[in-house]
């Protein structure tokens, strides 16, 4: 008799809680890890913190978990200020990047561990552990040890263990970073599915922007201890608030352009601006490759959008076409079928879709162009 995870899993007694981080600051000696982080997680929401190493995303998570103390700021969970509460009393479930499981305990014992600490009876613990293992699809491995199961399975057990204690908040510290690419994408969707099913407020830390965009309700892009932009994935991607966000998330072309009258002219195309308040003048425009289309030119075409293909990179469903426009290189990303018409050396004409673009008069960006 097979039962689905949804049948056997009983809904938690509590619904998702709100988590608020106010003005968190943390430094290690001279190094500033967090420089005033404000973040609110709505009940049941999954927020991904995204950024390069050293940006402070893991520190934020660890402060929330209570594994480290903030120098300044407050942490409020479900309306209660827990800033001074030790980690063991915060009632949060955490999944680590690696070495999550206790090697001397079986999978089931690992999952039941938190319940054992809470003096839950053996019968109840075992039952709940099995429930959790079914939720993550690993009830068959209950009596194995960590060393006997794969990395992906270990992380699923870690998730089961974190959820077994019915925590208020779920914390995931780059849980997929140590896994193979294929396992990573499968497990990422699993995690999201389970998180939605349980309805728990979740903070997910990652450096992989694809991960963040795929599963989060909102993404917070961090740099140098601050959140640069916080919003739904589509917004982060198509309306980046700064050039850092634009360049960290997805690929970008940097093209010189001229702003006038609320629009920017890039290589002869008029493109709307994300931020209308930009002053007139020369800028660098950040154009997404998928906004650029390529068509084989008849030959003898000239103009700002005429050029020669340098290379075509096959990526599976899409292909990236790199085009030399006489002094500037542009990347276009097209469905592979469309890119089939061109190869290296083909003369082509480009078109830029009028998506709103981010521009920057930043000399640092300008100098790299």
């Amino acid at each position: 008799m097979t039962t689905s995870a949804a049948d056997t899993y009983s809904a938690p007694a509590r619904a998702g809680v709100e988590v608020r981080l106010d003005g968190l600051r943390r430094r290690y000696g001279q190094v500033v890890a967090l420089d005033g982080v404000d973040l609110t997680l709505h009940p049941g929401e999954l927020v991904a913190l995204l950024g390069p190493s050293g940006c402070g995303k893991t520190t934020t998570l660890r402060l929330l978990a209570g594994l480290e103390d903030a120098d300044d700021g407050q942490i409020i969970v479900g309306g209660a200020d827990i800033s001074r509460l030790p980690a063991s009393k915060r009632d949060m479930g955490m999944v680590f990047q690696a070495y999550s499981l206790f090697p001397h305990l079986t999978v089931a014992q690992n999952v039941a561990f938190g319940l054992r600490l809470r003096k839950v009876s053996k019968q109840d613990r075992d039952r709940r552990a099995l429930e959790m293992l079914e939720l993550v699809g690993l009830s068959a491995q209950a009596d194995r040890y960590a060393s006997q199961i794969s990395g992906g399975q270990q992380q699923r057990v870690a998730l089961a263990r974190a959820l077994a204690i019915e925590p208020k908040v779920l914390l995931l510290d780059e849980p997929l970073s140590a896994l193979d690419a294929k396992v990573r994408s499968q497990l990422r969707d699993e995690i999201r599915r389970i998180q939605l099913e349980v309805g728990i407020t979740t903070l997910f830390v990652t450096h992989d922007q694809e991960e963040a965009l795929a599963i989060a309700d909102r993404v917070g892009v961090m740099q140098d201890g601050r959140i640069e932009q916080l919003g739904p994935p589509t917004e982060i991607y198509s309306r980046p608030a700064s050039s850092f966000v634009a360049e960290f998330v997805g690929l970008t072309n940097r093209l010189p352009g001229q702003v006038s009258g609320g629009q920017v002219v890039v290589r002869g195309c008029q493109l709307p601006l994300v931020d209308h308040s930009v002053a007139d003048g020369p800028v660098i425009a950040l154009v997404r490759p998928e906004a650029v289309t390529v068509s084989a030119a008849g030959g003898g075409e000239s103009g700002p959008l005429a050029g020669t293909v340098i290379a075509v990179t096959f990526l599976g469903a899409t292909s990236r076409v790199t085009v030399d426009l006489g002094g500037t290189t542009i990347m276009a990303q097209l469905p592979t079928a469309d890119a089939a018409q061109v190869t290296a050396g083909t003369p082509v004409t480009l078109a830029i879709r009028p998506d709103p673009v981010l521009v920057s008069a930043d000399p640092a960006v300008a100098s790299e162009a």
Partner: protein
Amino acid sequence: MAAVTSLGESAPAARPATPGSMHAGRRRKLNLFRYVVFVIFGLFFFLPLLATARYSLEGTKAGSWTMKAWAQIATYPGLLSAIEITLELAAITCVLVLVLLLPTMIWIRLRVQWISRVFEFLCLLPLTIPAIVLVVGLGPIYNWIEHYNLSALQLCWVYVILALPYAYRALATGLEAIDVTTLSEAARSLGANWLTVMTRVIAPNMGQAILNALLLSAALALGEFTIAETLNYTTLQVALFNISRATTNAGVLFSTSLAALLFAFFLLVILSYSRRRSRRRG
């Protein structure tokens, strides 16, 4: 003119165990514990050394100070010759250990890998056969050797055996750190024969490990007492023992002990310097 940027960082940042990543309170308690432990153990380990130093400087009247015991290292009857012969013994042992182990280990690694488990077992076997046991069976063998040569240097043969486990581990660590197969294949494809591969490709890359093995073997030879004493050879340790039987707490015992310790410390410093240099080069 770069117009593209890449996706976010691909290498995951391993979280370093920063000293700050613990609660301040718990860190404080831990540090208190640590300092207490270091003070207590430090005293325990230091006091015998202190006693040795004091006795090495003790004069004929209690409470007086003199360097006589240190001068006696050179003048005490039989001591200097014992020191000399022990140093020679250590040098010979080192060379023998290297000559015996290094080519064999490289050869096994290159050509006879299936033997390596057996080889490891043999090298570690001396750990389970204490010197005092080994010497019981060495009697007849050394009786035979003494027909030909009475010098204490003959101890080198058995000292090599005693040094095997330590030298083996040192050299094995060094071998593991370099990709022996690839290096040797590259050299062979360029025309080198096996001898060249061993002497000019592999061995030069094991400098640190070889130095380690040499120092361990030397330390063993300098400190060995059991076999030398039982077979009636006079090495440094045996000479010291005899002196102590004749004159309990003779000053020269302590000055020599301290000198040996300083020498060992000096060798360790050299070793750590060479380690740092090789790390910079690498």
